Protein backbone atom coordinates (compact mmCIF):
# COMPACT_ATOMS: atom_id res chain seq x y z
CA UNK A 1 0.00 0.00 0.00
CA UNK A 2 1.53 3.29 -1.01
CA UNK A 3 0.61 6.75 0.11
CA UNK A 4 0.81 9.63 -2.29
CA UNK A 5 0.96 13.13 -0.90
CA UNK A 6 -1.75 15.34 -2.43
CA UNK A 7 -0.35 17.90 -4.82
CA UNK A 8 -2.06 20.91 -3.18
CA UNK A 9 0.28 20.78 -0.18
CA UNK A 10 3.24 23.09 0.19
CA UNK A 11 6.73 21.74 0.02
CA UNK A 12 7.15 22.18 3.77
CA UNK A 13 3.95 20.23 4.46
CA UNK A 14 5.03 17.47 2.12
CA UNK A 15 8.40 17.26 3.84
CA UNK A 16 6.72 17.15 7.25
CA UNK A 17 4.40 14.34 6.18
CA UNK A 18 7.24 12.41 4.62
CA UNK A 19 9.19 12.67 7.86
CA UNK A 20 6.20 11.62 9.98
CA UNK A 21 5.03 8.89 7.69
CA UNK A 22 1.51 7.53 7.34
CA UNK A 23 -1.66 8.75 5.63
CA UNK A 24 -3.72 11.94 5.99
CA UNK A 25 -3.71 13.61 9.42
CA UNK A 26 -7.34 14.79 9.50
CA UNK A 27 -9.77 12.64 11.52
CA UNK A 28 -12.83 11.19 9.77
CA UNK A 29 -16.08 12.48 11.27
CA UNK A 30 -17.48 9.03 12.30
CA UNK A 31 -14.38 8.61 14.48
CA UNK A 32 -14.13 12.21 15.60
CA UNK A 33 -17.61 12.45 17.16
CA UNK A 34 -17.31 9.38 19.45
CA UNK A 35 -13.74 10.43 20.25
CA UNK A 36 -14.96 13.85 21.39
CA UNK A 37 -17.66 12.22 23.53
CA UNK A 38 -15.01 9.98 25.09
CA UNK A 39 -12.80 12.98 25.77
CA UNK A 40 -15.69 14.82 27.41
CA UNK A 41 -16.60 11.80 29.53
CA UNK A 42 -13.06 11.40 30.82
CA UNK A 43 -12.11 15.04 31.21
CA UNK A 44 -15.31 16.65 32.58
CA UNK A 45 -15.28 14.81 35.95
CA UNK A 46 -11.66 15.88 36.47
CA UNK A 47 -12.65 19.42 35.55
CA UNK A 48 -15.42 19.13 38.15
CA UNK A 49 -12.79 18.32 40.77
CA UNK A 50 -10.77 21.38 39.81
CA UNK A 51 -13.78 23.68 39.63
CA UNK A 52 -15.21 22.68 43.03
CA UNK A 53 -11.87 22.64 44.84
CA UNK A 54 -11.63 24.95 47.87
CA UNK A 55 -8.59 26.73 46.44
CA UNK A 56 -8.47 29.34 49.18
CA UNK A 57 -8.63 26.85 52.06
CA UNK A 58 -6.53 24.11 50.47
CA UNK A 59 -3.77 24.34 53.03
CA UNK A 60 -6.20 24.25 55.95
CA UNK A 61 -8.13 21.33 54.45
CA UNK A 62 -4.95 19.31 53.97
CA UNK A 63 -3.33 20.10 57.29
CA UNK A 64 -6.07 18.36 59.29
CA UNK A 65 -4.51 15.53 61.30
CA UNK A 66 -6.29 12.80 59.40
CA UNK A 67 -5.27 14.09 55.99
CA UNK A 68 -1.56 14.36 56.83
CA UNK A 69 -1.51 10.95 58.48
CA UNK A 70 -3.28 9.39 55.50
CA UNK A 71 -0.79 11.00 53.10
CA UNK A 72 2.25 9.77 55.02
CA UNK A 73 0.80 6.28 55.41
CA UNK A 74 -0.11 6.04 51.74
CA UNK A 75 3.32 7.17 50.58
CA UNK A 76 5.34 4.78 52.70
CA UNK A 77 3.07 1.75 52.24
CA UNK A 78 3.02 2.21 48.45
CA UNK A 79 6.81 2.48 48.43
CA UNK A 80 7.18 -0.61 50.64
CA UNK A 81 4.82 -2.53 48.36
CA UNK A 82 6.83 -1.50 45.32
CA UNK A 83 10.10 -2.51 46.99
CA UNK A 84 8.69 -5.95 47.88
CA UNK A 85 7.29 -6.30 44.37
CA UNK A 86 10.72 -5.57 42.88
CA UNK A 87 12.48 -8.06 45.14
CA UNK A 88 10.11 -10.98 44.56
CA UNK A 89 8.36 -9.92 41.35
CA UNK A 90 11.36 -9.46 39.06
CA UNK A 91 12.69 -12.98 39.72
CA UNK A 92 9.20 -14.34 39.02
CA UNK A 93 9.08 -12.35 35.79
CA UNK A 94 12.41 -13.90 34.82
CA UNK A 95 11.12 -17.39 35.64
CA UNK A 96 8.02 -16.85 33.52
CA UNK A 97 9.94 -15.35 30.59
CA UNK A 98 13.08 -17.39 30.45
CA UNK A 99 12.39 -20.82 31.80
CA UNK A 100 9.88 -23.43 30.77
CA UNK A 101 8.17 -26.03 32.89
CA UNK A 102 4.82 -27.84 32.94
CA UNK A 103 1.99 -25.66 34.22
CA UNK A 104 3.77 -22.44 33.27
CA UNK A 105 0.75 -21.02 31.49
CA UNK A 106 -1.46 -21.75 34.47
CA UNK A 107 1.07 -20.06 36.75
CA UNK A 108 1.15 -17.01 34.52
CA UNK A 109 -2.66 -16.85 34.60
CA UNK A 110 -2.74 -17.14 38.39
CA UNK A 111 -0.09 -14.47 38.76
CA UNK A 112 -1.99 -12.03 36.56
CA UNK A 113 -5.31 -12.80 38.28
CA UNK A 114 -5.09 -9.87 40.74
CA UNK A 115 -5.03 -7.57 37.70
CA UNK A 116 -8.55 -8.62 36.77
CA UNK A 117 -9.94 -9.67 40.15
CA UNK A 118 -12.10 -7.05 41.87
CA UNK A 119 -9.87 -5.64 44.62
CA UNK A 120 -12.42 -6.23 47.37
CA UNK A 121 -12.42 -9.94 46.45
CA UNK A 122 -8.65 -9.86 46.89
CA UNK A 123 -9.22 -8.36 50.34
CA UNK A 124 -11.68 -11.09 51.28
CA UNK A 125 -9.22 -13.73 50.07
CA UNK A 126 -6.39 -12.22 52.12
CA UNK A 127 -8.66 -12.13 55.15
CA UNK A 128 -9.61 -15.79 54.74
CA UNK A 129 -5.94 -16.74 54.45
CA UNK A 130 -4.27 -14.41 56.92
CA UNK A 131 -7.12 -13.25 59.14
CA UNK A 132 -7.09 -14.25 62.77
CA UNK A 133 -9.28 -17.26 61.97
CA UNK A 134 -7.83 -17.69 58.48
CA UNK A 135 -6.29 -20.98 57.41
CA UNK A 136 -2.76 -19.59 57.78
CA UNK A 137 -3.49 -16.71 60.11
CA UNK A 138 -4.83 -18.94 62.86
CA UNK A 139 -1.40 -20.59 63.20
CA UNK A 140 0.30 -17.22 63.27
CA UNK A 141 -2.06 -16.24 66.06
CA UNK A 142 -1.78 -19.52 68.00
CA UNK A 143 1.99 -19.95 67.77
CA UNK A 144 3.29 -16.37 67.72
CA UNK A 145 0.37 -14.26 68.90
CA UNK A 146 0.76 -12.39 65.64
CA UNK A 147 -2.32 -10.98 63.95
CA UNK A 148 -1.94 -9.29 60.61
CA UNK A 149 -5.31 -7.62 59.96
CA UNK A 150 -5.65 -4.03 61.14
CA UNK A 151 -1.90 -3.39 61.01
CA UNK A 152 0.11 -1.38 58.46
CA UNK A 153 1.62 -4.71 57.41
CA UNK A 154 -1.84 -5.72 56.23
CA UNK A 155 -1.98 -2.52 54.18
CA UNK A 156 1.35 -3.34 52.53
CA UNK A 157 0.23 -6.93 51.87
CA UNK A 158 -3.06 -5.81 50.31
CA UNK A 159 -1.31 -3.23 48.13
CA UNK A 160 1.40 -5.68 47.05
CA UNK A 161 -1.25 -8.26 46.16
CA UNK A 162 -2.98 -5.94 43.71
CA UNK A 163 0.03 -4.02 42.41
CA UNK A 164 2.77 -6.64 41.95
CA UNK A 165 1.20 -8.22 38.83
CA UNK A 166 1.63 -4.88 37.02
CA UNK A 167 5.36 -5.08 37.57
CA UNK A 168 5.57 -8.77 36.72
CA UNK A 169 3.71 -8.38 33.44
CA UNK A 170 5.73 -5.34 32.34
CA UNK A 171 9.08 -6.93 33.13
CA UNK A 172 8.11 -10.30 31.67
CA UNK A 173 7.14 -8.61 28.41
CA UNK A 174 10.43 -6.75 28.29
CA UNK A 175 12.43 -9.89 29.02
CA UNK A 176 10.65 -11.79 26.28
CA UNK A 177 11.36 -9.17 23.66
CA UNK A 178 14.91 -8.48 24.82
CA UNK A 179 17.76 -9.47 22.53
CA UNK A 180 19.27 -12.52 24.20
CA UNK A 181 22.39 -12.13 22.08
CA UNK A 182 23.95 -9.83 24.68
CA UNK A 183 23.35 -12.37 27.43
CA UNK A 184 24.74 -15.19 25.30
CA UNK A 185 27.80 -13.11 24.53
CA UNK A 186 28.37 -12.44 28.21
CA UNK A 187 28.01 -16.15 28.97
CA UNK A 188 30.53 -17.13 26.32
CA UNK A 189 32.93 -14.58 27.81
CA UNK A 190 32.78 -16.52 31.07
CA UNK A 191 30.19 -14.68 33.14
CA UNK A 192 28.22 -16.78 35.61
CA UNK A 193 24.41 -16.79 35.29
CA UNK A 194 23.77 -14.43 38.20
CA UNK A 195 26.45 -12.07 36.85
CA UNK A 196 24.73 -12.09 33.46
CA UNK A 197 21.44 -11.32 35.19
CA UNK A 198 22.91 -8.52 37.28
CA UNK A 199 25.10 -6.83 34.71
CA UNK A 200 23.45 -7.54 31.37
CA UNK A 201 19.77 -8.52 31.74
CA UNK A 202 18.68 -5.97 34.32
CA UNK A 203 20.29 -2.94 32.59
CA UNK A 204 18.83 -4.19 29.32
CA UNK A 205 15.25 -4.05 30.68
CA UNK A 206 15.83 -1.05 32.96
CA UNK A 207 13.34 1.27 31.18
CA UNK A 208 10.54 -1.31 31.46
CA UNK A 209 11.61 -2.08 34.99
CA UNK A 210 11.30 1.58 35.84
CA UNK A 211 7.93 1.90 34.10
CA UNK A 212 6.65 -1.25 35.82
CA UNK A 213 7.80 0.01 39.21
CA UNK A 214 6.08 3.36 38.68
CA UNK A 215 2.83 1.64 37.60
CA UNK A 216 3.08 -0.67 40.59
CA UNK A 217 3.58 2.29 42.95
CA UNK A 218 0.67 4.20 41.49
CA UNK A 219 -1.64 1.17 41.71
CA UNK A 220 -0.58 0.54 45.31
CA UNK A 221 -1.21 4.18 46.21
CA UNK A 222 -4.73 4.08 44.84
CA UNK A 223 -5.76 0.75 46.36
CA UNK A 224 -9.03 0.87 48.31
CA UNK A 225 -11.14 -2.32 48.26
CA UNK A 226 -8.53 -4.83 49.36
CA UNK A 227 -7.05 -2.48 51.96
CA UNK A 228 -10.32 -1.55 53.63
CA UNK A 229 -11.43 -5.20 53.75
CA UNK A 230 -8.18 -6.76 54.99
CA UNK A 231 -6.62 -3.97 56.98
CA UNK A 232 -9.72 -2.11 58.18
CA UNK A 233 -9.47 1.62 58.69
CA UNK A 234 -7.84 3.52 61.52
CA UNK A 235 -6.33 6.98 61.07
CA UNK A 236 -2.55 6.81 61.33
CA UNK A 237 -2.43 3.02 61.19
CA UNK A 238 -4.38 1.74 58.24
CA UNK A 239 -6.38 4.67 56.83
CA UNK A 240 -4.75 5.32 53.48
CA UNK A 241 -5.58 8.33 51.31
CA UNK A 242 -8.32 6.73 49.21
CA UNK A 243 -10.04 5.48 52.38
CA UNK A 244 -9.64 8.92 53.99
CA UNK A 245 -11.30 10.50 50.94
CA UNK A 246 -14.19 8.02 51.20
CA UNK A 247 -14.94 8.82 54.85
CA UNK A 248 -14.13 12.52 54.54
CA UNK A 249 -17.02 12.90 52.08
CA UNK A 250 -19.38 12.39 55.03
CA UNK A 251 -17.64 14.62 57.54
CA UNK A 252 -15.42 17.13 55.77
CA UNK A 253 -16.07 17.37 52.03
CA UNK A 254 -13.39 20.07 51.60
CA UNK A 255 -10.73 17.71 52.93
CA UNK A 256 -12.05 14.99 50.62
CA UNK A 257 -11.70 17.27 47.59
CA UNK A 258 -8.25 18.44 48.71
CA UNK A 259 -7.01 14.86 49.14
CA UNK A 260 -8.52 13.94 45.79
CA UNK A 261 -6.58 16.79 44.19
CA UNK A 262 -3.36 15.48 45.72
CA UNK A 263 -4.06 12.03 44.28
CA UNK A 264 -4.89 13.63 40.92
CA UNK A 265 -1.61 15.53 40.86
CA UNK A 266 0.31 12.36 41.79
CA UNK A 267 -1.45 10.44 39.01
CA UNK A 268 -0.66 13.11 36.42
CA UNK A 269 2.97 13.18 37.55
CA UNK A 270 3.15 9.40 37.18
CA UNK A 271 1.76 9.55 33.66
CA UNK A 272 4.06 12.37 32.62
CA UNK A 273 7.08 10.57 34.04
CA UNK A 274 6.15 7.37 32.22
CA UNK A 275 5.68 9.05 28.85
CA UNK A 276 5.20 7.13 25.64
CA UNK A 277 8.71 5.92 25.21
CA UNK A 278 8.75 3.92 28.43
CA UNK A 279 5.45 2.19 27.83
CA UNK A 280 5.79 1.50 24.13
CA UNK A 281 9.48 0.79 23.80
CA UNK A 282 10.80 -2.32 25.45
CA UNK A 283 14.50 -2.71 26.17
CA UNK A 284 17.03 -0.39 24.61
CA UNK A 285 17.57 -1.52 21.03
Amino acid at each position, binding site marked *: MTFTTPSHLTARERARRAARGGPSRSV*PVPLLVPALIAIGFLVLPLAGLLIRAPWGDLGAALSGADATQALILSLWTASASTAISLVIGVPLAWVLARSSFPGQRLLRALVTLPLVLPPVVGGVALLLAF*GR*TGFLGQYLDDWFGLTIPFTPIAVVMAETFVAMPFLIITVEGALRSADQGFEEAAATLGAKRMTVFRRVTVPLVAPSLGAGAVLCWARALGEFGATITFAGSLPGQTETMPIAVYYALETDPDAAIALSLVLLVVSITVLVSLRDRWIRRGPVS
Partner: protein
Amino acid sequence: MRRFAVITAGLAAVALAGCSSSSSSSSGAASASSSASSSASKGSITVFAAASLMGTFTQLGKQFDSAHPGDTVKFSFGPSSGLATEIISGAPADVFASASSTNMEMVVKAGDAANPQTFAKNTMEVAVPPSNPGKVTSVKDLSKSAVKVALCQPQVPCGVVAAEIFKNAGITVKPVTLQPDVKSVLTQVETGNVDAGMVYVTDVMAAGTKVKGVTIPASEEASTLYPIATISNSKQKSVAQAFVAYVLSPTGQQVLTAAGFEKP
Protein backbone atom coordinates in the same frame (compact mmCIF):
# COMPACT_ATOMS: atom_id res chain seq x y z
CA MET B 1 -16.33 7.84 2.82
CA ARG B 2 -18.98 10.52 2.46
CA ARG B 3 -21.79 7.94 2.39
CA PHE B 4 -20.44 6.41 5.61
CA ALA B 5 -20.41 9.82 7.25
CA VAL B 6 -23.99 10.51 6.19
CA ILE B 7 -25.20 7.15 7.51
CA THR B 8 -23.43 7.64 10.84
CA ALA B 9 -24.79 11.15 11.22
CA GLY B 10 -28.27 9.86 10.43
CA LEU B 11 -28.03 7.09 13.04
CA ALA B 12 -26.79 9.57 15.62
CA ALA B 13 -29.70 11.90 14.89
CA VAL B 14 -32.20 9.05 15.24
CA ALA B 15 -30.63 7.96 18.53
CA LEU B 16 -30.74 11.48 19.94
CA ALA B 17 -34.35 11.94 18.84
CA GLY B 18 -35.23 8.62 20.46
CA CYS B 19 -33.57 9.63 23.71
CA SER B 20 -35.33 13.00 23.94
CA SER B 21 -38.77 11.63 23.16
CA SER B 22 -38.56 8.80 25.70
CA SER B 23 -37.42 11.15 28.45
CA SER B 24 -40.31 13.52 27.86
CA SER B 25 -42.81 10.68 27.96
CA SER B 26 -41.48 9.19 31.19
CA SER B 27 -41.38 12.47 33.10
CA GLY B 28 -45.13 12.33 33.45
CA ALA B 29 -45.25 8.73 34.58
CA ALA B 30 -44.94 8.04 38.26
CA SER B 31 -42.00 5.74 38.67
CA ALA B 32 -39.27 5.59 41.27
CA SER B 33 -36.12 6.50 39.41
CA SER B 34 -34.15 4.04 41.48
CA SER B 35 -35.91 0.91 40.25
CA ALA B 36 -33.99 -0.47 37.32
CA SER B 37 -36.38 -3.30 36.50
CA SER B 38 -38.77 -2.75 33.67
CA SER B 39 -41.61 -4.23 35.69
CA ALA B 40 -41.63 -1.45 38.34
CA SER B 41 -45.07 -1.39 39.90
CA LYS B 42 -47.07 1.78 40.04
CA GLY B 43 -46.33 2.58 43.70
CA SER B 44 -42.70 1.69 44.21
CA ILE B 45 -40.71 3.52 46.86
CA THR B 46 -37.10 3.42 48.02
CA VAL B 47 -36.44 3.64 51.73
CA PHE B 48 -32.98 4.70 52.93
CA ALA B 49 -32.63 3.16 56.38
CA ALA B 50 -29.90 2.81 58.98
CA ALA B 51 -28.00 -0.48 58.90
CA SER B 52 -29.33 -1.45 62.34
CA LEU B 53 -32.85 -1.48 60.87
CA MET B 54 -31.99 -4.14 58.29
CA GLY B 55 -33.89 -7.06 59.84
CA THR B 56 -36.95 -5.20 61.09
CA PHE B 57 -37.48 -2.98 58.07
CA THR B 58 -37.06 -5.85 55.61
CA GLN B 59 -39.84 -7.63 57.47
CA LEU B 60 -41.97 -4.47 57.63
CA GLY B 61 -41.42 -4.01 53.89
CA LYS B 62 -42.75 -7.49 53.14
CA GLN B 63 -45.76 -6.95 55.41
CA PHE B 64 -46.44 -3.57 53.80
CA ASP B 65 -46.26 -5.08 50.32
CA SER B 66 -48.85 -7.72 51.24
CA ALA B 67 -51.12 -5.19 52.92
CA HIS B 68 -50.90 -2.77 49.98
CA PRO B 69 -51.15 -4.69 46.71
CA GLY B 70 -49.64 -2.74 43.85
CA ASP B 71 -47.10 -0.99 46.08
CA THR B 72 -43.55 -2.22 46.63
CA VAL B 73 -40.88 -1.08 49.03
CA LYS B 74 -37.18 -1.27 48.19
CA PHE B 75 -34.45 -0.66 50.74
CA SER B 76 -30.99 0.81 50.80
CA PHE B 77 -29.32 0.12 54.15
CA GLY B 78 -26.17 1.85 55.30
CA PRO B 79 -24.66 4.23 57.82
CA SER B 80 -27.09 7.07 58.58
CA SER B 81 -24.37 9.68 58.01
CA GLY B 82 -23.55 8.25 54.58
CA LEU B 83 -27.23 7.97 53.63
CA ALA B 84 -27.86 11.57 54.71
CA THR B 85 -24.98 12.73 52.49
CA GLU B 86 -26.41 10.75 49.57
CA ILE B 87 -29.90 12.22 50.01
CA ILE B 88 -28.53 15.76 50.17
CA SER B 89 -26.58 15.04 46.97
CA GLY B 90 -29.82 14.06 45.26
CA ALA B 91 -30.09 10.29 45.68
CA PRO B 92 -33.60 9.08 44.71
CA ALA B 93 -35.00 8.22 48.14
CA ASP B 94 -38.64 8.47 49.19
CA VAL B 95 -38.27 7.81 52.92
CA PHE B 96 -35.33 8.26 55.30
CA ALA B 97 -35.10 6.36 58.59
CA SER B 98 -32.05 7.46 60.53
CA ALA B 99 -30.39 6.00 63.63
CA SER B 100 -29.91 9.47 65.07
CA SER B 101 -31.64 12.83 65.02
CA THR B 102 -28.37 14.54 64.05
CA ASN B 103 -28.32 12.97 60.59
CA MET B 104 -32.03 13.64 60.11
CA GLU B 105 -31.49 17.30 61.04
CA MET B 106 -28.80 17.53 58.33
CA VAL B 107 -31.33 16.37 55.75
CA VAL B 108 -34.08 18.66 57.10
CA LYS B 109 -31.70 21.63 57.08
CA ALA B 110 -30.84 20.91 53.45
CA GLY B 111 -34.54 21.11 52.68
CA ASP B 112 -34.89 17.48 51.63
CA ALA B 113 -37.21 16.37 54.43
CA ALA B 114 -39.70 17.85 56.88
CA ASN B 115 -41.57 16.85 60.04
CA PRO B 116 -39.54 13.82 61.14
CA GLN B 117 -41.23 11.56 63.67
CA THR B 118 -39.38 9.40 66.18
CA PHE B 119 -40.36 5.75 65.99
CA ALA B 120 -37.82 3.84 68.10
CA LYS B 121 -34.98 4.03 70.59
CA ASN B 122 -31.92 1.81 70.79
CA THR B 123 -29.15 1.21 73.29
CA MET B 124 -25.78 -0.46 72.84
CA GLU B 125 -24.19 -3.70 73.92
CA VAL B 126 -20.71 -5.16 73.63
CA ALA B 127 -20.61 -8.05 71.15
CA VAL B 128 -17.92 -10.71 71.52
CA PRO B 129 -17.24 -13.91 69.57
CA PRO B 130 -18.83 -16.97 71.23
CA SER B 131 -15.45 -18.16 72.53
CA ASN B 132 -14.72 -14.71 73.99
CA PRO B 133 -10.98 -14.76 73.19
CA GLY B 134 -10.45 -11.34 74.76
CA LYS B 135 -12.09 -12.44 78.06
CA VAL B 136 -14.36 -9.42 78.01
CA THR B 137 -16.78 -9.30 80.93
CA SER B 138 -17.63 -5.61 81.04
CA VAL B 139 -17.38 -2.57 78.82
CA LYS B 140 -14.41 -1.35 80.89
CA ASP B 141 -12.39 -4.32 79.54
CA LEU B 142 -12.41 -2.63 76.15
CA SER B 143 -9.81 -0.14 77.35
CA LYS B 144 -7.26 -2.93 77.86
CA SER B 145 -4.57 -2.80 75.19
CA ALA B 146 -4.70 -6.56 74.67
CA VAL B 147 -8.35 -6.47 73.62
CA LYS B 148 -8.91 -5.81 69.92
CA VAL B 149 -11.99 -3.62 69.53
CA ALA B 150 -13.94 -2.68 66.41
CA LEU B 151 -15.96 0.54 66.49
CA CYS B 152 -18.04 2.48 64.01
CA GLN B 153 -16.62 5.53 62.30
CA PRO B 154 -17.02 8.53 64.64
CA GLN B 155 -19.52 10.30 62.37
CA VAL B 156 -21.89 7.31 62.25
CA PRO B 157 -24.57 7.12 65.01
CA CYS B 158 -23.19 3.88 66.50
CA GLY B 159 -19.80 5.58 66.78
CA VAL B 160 -21.32 8.64 68.45
CA VAL B 161 -23.24 6.57 71.02
CA ALA B 162 -20.21 4.36 71.73
CA ALA B 163 -18.13 7.47 72.42
CA GLU B 164 -20.82 8.66 74.85
CA ILE B 165 -20.78 5.31 76.64
CA PHE B 166 -17.00 5.38 76.97
CA LYS B 167 -17.25 8.89 78.40
CA ASN B 168 -19.86 7.70 80.91
CA ALA B 169 -17.66 4.79 81.88
CA GLY B 170 -14.60 7.02 82.13
CA ILE B 171 -12.47 4.91 79.78
CA THR B 172 -10.41 5.53 76.65
CA VAL B 173 -10.70 2.85 74.00
CA LYS B 174 -8.17 2.46 71.19
CA PRO B 175 -9.89 0.44 68.46
CA VAL B 176 -8.06 -1.51 65.80
CA THR B 177 -10.50 -0.49 63.13
CA LEU B 178 -13.25 2.06 62.48
CA GLN B 179 -15.90 0.38 60.34
CA PRO B 180 -18.36 2.13 58.02
CA ASP B 181 -21.53 0.90 59.76
CA VAL B 182 -22.74 -1.18 62.70
CA LYS B 183 -23.38 -4.33 60.66
CA SER B 184 -19.76 -4.44 59.49
CA VAL B 185 -18.64 -4.13 63.14
CA LEU B 186 -20.87 -7.12 63.89
CA THR B 187 -19.31 -9.05 61.00
CA GLN B 188 -15.81 -8.40 62.35
CA VAL B 189 -16.92 -9.88 65.67
CA GLU B 190 -18.69 -12.84 64.05
CA THR B 191 -15.63 -13.76 61.99
CA GLY B 192 -13.43 -13.58 65.08
CA ASN B 193 -11.16 -10.90 63.63
CA VAL B 194 -11.66 -8.74 66.70
CA ASP B 195 -12.23 -9.53 70.37
CA ALA B 196 -15.13 -7.13 70.81
CA GLY B 197 -17.31 -4.64 68.98
CA MET B 198 -19.74 -1.95 70.06
CA VAL B 199 -23.10 -2.69 68.44
CA TYR B 200 -26.74 -2.12 69.28
CA VAL B 201 -28.78 -4.40 71.53
CA THR B 202 -30.90 -5.24 68.49
CA ASP B 203 -27.83 -6.38 66.52
CA VAL B 204 -26.78 -8.85 69.23
CA MET B 205 -30.32 -10.22 69.22
CA ALA B 206 -30.37 -10.49 65.44
CA ALA B 207 -27.02 -12.30 65.34
CA GLY B 208 -28.34 -15.11 67.54
CA THR B 209 -25.67 -17.65 68.42
CA LYS B 210 -23.00 -16.05 66.22
CA VAL B 211 -22.05 -13.58 68.95
CA LYS B 212 -22.38 -13.23 72.68
CA GLY B 213 -23.51 -9.99 74.28
CA VAL B 214 -21.98 -8.27 77.29
CA THR B 215 -24.55 -5.95 78.83
CA ILE B 216 -23.70 -2.35 79.61
CA PRO B 217 -24.94 -1.16 83.01
CA ALA B 218 -27.62 1.53 83.00
CA SER B 219 -25.26 4.06 84.63
CA GLU B 220 -22.93 3.90 81.63
CA GLU B 221 -25.46 3.23 78.91
CA ALA B 222 -26.38 5.79 76.25
CA SER B 223 -29.19 5.66 73.74
CA THR B 224 -30.11 7.02 70.34
CA LEU B 225 -33.47 7.97 68.86
CA TYR B 226 -34.60 6.88 65.39
CA PRO B 227 -36.54 9.50 63.38
CA ILE B 228 -38.30 8.78 60.10
CA ALA B 229 -39.48 11.23 57.43
CA THR B 230 -40.61 11.36 53.82
CA ILE B 231 -38.26 13.04 51.38
CA SER B 232 -39.50 16.33 49.93
CA ASN B 233 -39.01 15.59 46.25
CA SER B 234 -40.28 12.03 46.42
CA LYS B 235 -42.37 11.13 43.40
CA GLN B 236 -44.49 8.72 45.44
CA LYS B 237 -45.53 10.93 48.34
CA SER B 238 -48.71 9.00 49.19
CA VAL B 239 -47.02 5.59 49.29
CA ALA B 240 -44.09 7.07 51.22
CA GLN B 241 -46.44 8.59 53.80
CA ALA B 242 -48.33 5.29 54.01
CA PHE B 243 -45.08 3.46 54.80
CA VAL B 244 -44.11 5.99 57.47
CA ALA B 245 -47.58 5.62 59.01
CA TYR B 246 -47.14 1.83 58.90
CA VAL B 247 -43.85 2.01 60.79
CA LEU B 248 -45.49 4.21 63.44
CA SER B 249 -48.60 2.03 63.67
CA PRO B 250 -49.08 -0.61 66.41
CA THR B 251 -48.23 -3.36 63.88
CA GLY B 252 -44.98 -1.70 62.97
CA GLN B 253 -44.11 -0.97 66.57
CA GLN B 254 -44.75 -4.62 67.45
CA VAL B 255 -42.13 -5.79 64.94
CA LEU B 256 -39.62 -3.27 66.28
CA THR B 257 -40.22 -4.16 69.93
CA ALA B 258 -39.88 -7.86 69.16
CA ALA B 259 -36.45 -7.17 67.70
CA GLY B 260 -35.30 -5.39 70.84
CA PHE B 261 -36.00 -1.73 70.02
CA GLU B 262 -37.43 0.41 72.79
CA LYS B 263 -40.33 2.80 72.49
CA PRO B 264 -39.12 6.36 71.88
